[in-house]
């Protein structure tokens, strides 16, 4: 948009001065600008597909991953939180979220209200992506805004009021996510444009922010009743694995889609993502096998998610071999973090959002500062017209980028802690307490918050499994 306006202005000035040559030049530059901002059908197809893939990560991906991890009395509560998040943030995003995050810059911290209600966000390409309609970029970013607060629900799982969850999520999306997205990805943002920190698909914006806020929520809400004394095993591991697999698939939209075009960079990000995820799944599995004697399904699934998280900020800047290392380290690191939480017992981050997203995201953001390479993505660095001051420490031997990454991580911690505390405080006052009553917590969120049960066909508590006394149908008719 910006470039085209400039061309129009140039054309106007030239015609006024009646210089034929200048007019021709102006027309030529106008034609050039039109060409550069032409919607590309291939890129648009990929970005719309990626948007749908990222939507799939929240519902059903994350919904099933989290739903399976809780006890059966809370599964609907968790499914509901992910699903409703899609609806809630979709509306927040088109009304004011997109404008706050990506609208014209104000003080490098926040977008303005100029694009409220998507005013001026049309079907022509924008300054953010030259070959796809502005609305395609907007809806793609919408899916990121949805999944980020949905990730936090794992921390306060099984004990937060639904009304408190709704208000907290809306406030958090507005006061934490939107400014952070602006600072990292918005034009003129503090971390991306000014500092030159790199975050390809949301290591700081999505994972460190949700992981840190998860810690705040877990501490402020307190532990679940019976935490540490009652067993709270996952109630449906097939849900968990299905959810993790959907996350893995959807994440290609998340990372490869962040190239904002169907091109070589998208391919590179796709390969890096898959490599890191596979490495992390194996490293967590083997770490657990060595440490605790058994390779678990939950370990393999959690490892994959940890790898996806860690490679997210790096995916568009690193080659496949650094991606493998990033993933392998992420699996072991996050495994250790989750175990440490259990051993220490200081806080009840129910579904390990801190251990996986906070720790994995921080590692990924720092690892970007180690292995980011201009060979993979020349446009990201100063030499290629980008904002990053140097390549990664282990590629170039220069500390510049790594320092920026450290600053970005720390600033994200601060923003997430302060912002989450504020959102929780407001929510607590407005809704009248964040937690459900003890009776409601004992009964479960499904019944107490939604008046529904997940498994109505299962008569008793133990009769949900097995085809007891079943036999092949033809044998039945022979005996009758």
């Amino acid at each position, binding site marked *: 948009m910006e470039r085209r306006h400039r061309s129009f202005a140039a054309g106007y000035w030239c015609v006024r001065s009646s210089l034929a040559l200048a007019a021709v030049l102006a027309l030529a530059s106008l034609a050039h600008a039109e060409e550069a901002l032409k919607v590309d059908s291939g890129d648009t197809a990929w970005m719309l597909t990626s948007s749908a893939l990222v939507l799939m990560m929240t519902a059903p991906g994350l919904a099933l991953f989290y739903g399976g991890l809780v006890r059966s009395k809370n599964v609907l509560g968790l499914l509901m939180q992910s699903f409703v998040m899609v609806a809630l943030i979709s509306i927040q995003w088109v009304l004011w979220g997109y404008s706050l995050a990506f609208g014209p810059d104000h003080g490098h911290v926040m977008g303005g209200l100029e694009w409220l209600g998507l005013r001026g966000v049309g079907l022509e390409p924008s300054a953010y992506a030259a070959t796809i309609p502005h609305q395609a970029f907007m809806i793609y970013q919408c899916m990121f805004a949805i999944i980020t607060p949905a990730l936090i629900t794992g921390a306060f799982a099984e004990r937060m009021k639904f009304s408190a969850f709704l208000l907290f999520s809306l406030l958090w999306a507005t006061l934490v996510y939107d400014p952070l997205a602006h600072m990292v990805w918005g034009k003129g943002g503090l971390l991306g444009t000014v500092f030159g920190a790199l975050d390809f698909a949301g290591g700081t914006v999505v994972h460190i922010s949700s992981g840190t806020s998860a810690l705040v929520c877990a501490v402020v809400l307190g532990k679940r009743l019976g935490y540490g004394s009652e*067993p*709270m*095993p*996952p109630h449906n591991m097939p849900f968990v694995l299905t959810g993790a697999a959907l996350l893995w698939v959807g994440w290609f939209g998340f990372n490869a889609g962040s190239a904002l075009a169907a091109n070589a960079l998208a391919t590179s990000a796709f390969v890096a993502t898959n490599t890191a995820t596979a490495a992390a799944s194996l490293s967590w599995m083997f770490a*657990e096998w060595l440490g*605790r004697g*058994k390779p*678990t399904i*939950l*370990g393999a699934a*959690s490892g994959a998610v940890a790898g996806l998280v860690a490679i997210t900020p790096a995916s568009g800047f690193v080659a496949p071999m650094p991606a493998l290392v990033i993933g392998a380290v992420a699996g072991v690191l996050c*495994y250790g973090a*989750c*175990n440490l939480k*259990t*051993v220490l017992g200081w806080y009840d981050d129910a579904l*390990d959002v801190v251990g996986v997203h906070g720790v994995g995201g921080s590692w990924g953001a720092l690892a970007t500062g180690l292995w980011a390479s201009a060979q993979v993505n020349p446009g990201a660095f100063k030499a290629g017209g980008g904002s990053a001051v140097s390549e990664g420490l282990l590629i170039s031997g220069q500390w510049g980028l790594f320092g920026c990454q450290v600053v970005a991580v720390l600033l994200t911690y601060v923003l997430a802690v302060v912002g989450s505390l504020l959102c929780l405080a407001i929510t607590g006052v407005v809704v009248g307490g964040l937690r459900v009553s003890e009776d409601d917590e004992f009964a479960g969120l499904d019944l107490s918050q939604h008046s529904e049960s997940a498994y109505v066909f299962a008569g*008793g508590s*133990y*009769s949900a*499994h*097995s085809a*007891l*006394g079943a*036999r092949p149908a033809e044998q039945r008719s022979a005996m009758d």
Partner: protein
Amino acid sequence: MKKVEAIIKPFKLDEVKESLSAIGVQGITVSEVKGFGRQKGHTELYRGAEYVVDFLPKVKLEIIVREEQVADVVETIEKAAKTGRIGDGKIFVLPIDEVVRIRTGERGGDAI
């Protein structure tokens, strides 16, 4: 009249049911239950949190029989349900005061 109650290993259910049908038992009530005896439970591991599961799944059979059938039924279950390893289960025999067939109103032995 007696009630024979048997707690057996779930995978033995078919074998026991076939053997009981073969000696003329007309009806069985089956439930899935959990419990423990001498057989040890198992541990489960979720992201480093280890749980000991003491209660093991078993199947409970309830069969109402006439006095003269009791020995036969008990012996049949014992034979069919046996693996020789810990956890094969137990058989209980209890007295029954009355039986009513709801559809016809029959009482006692006729109702079995």
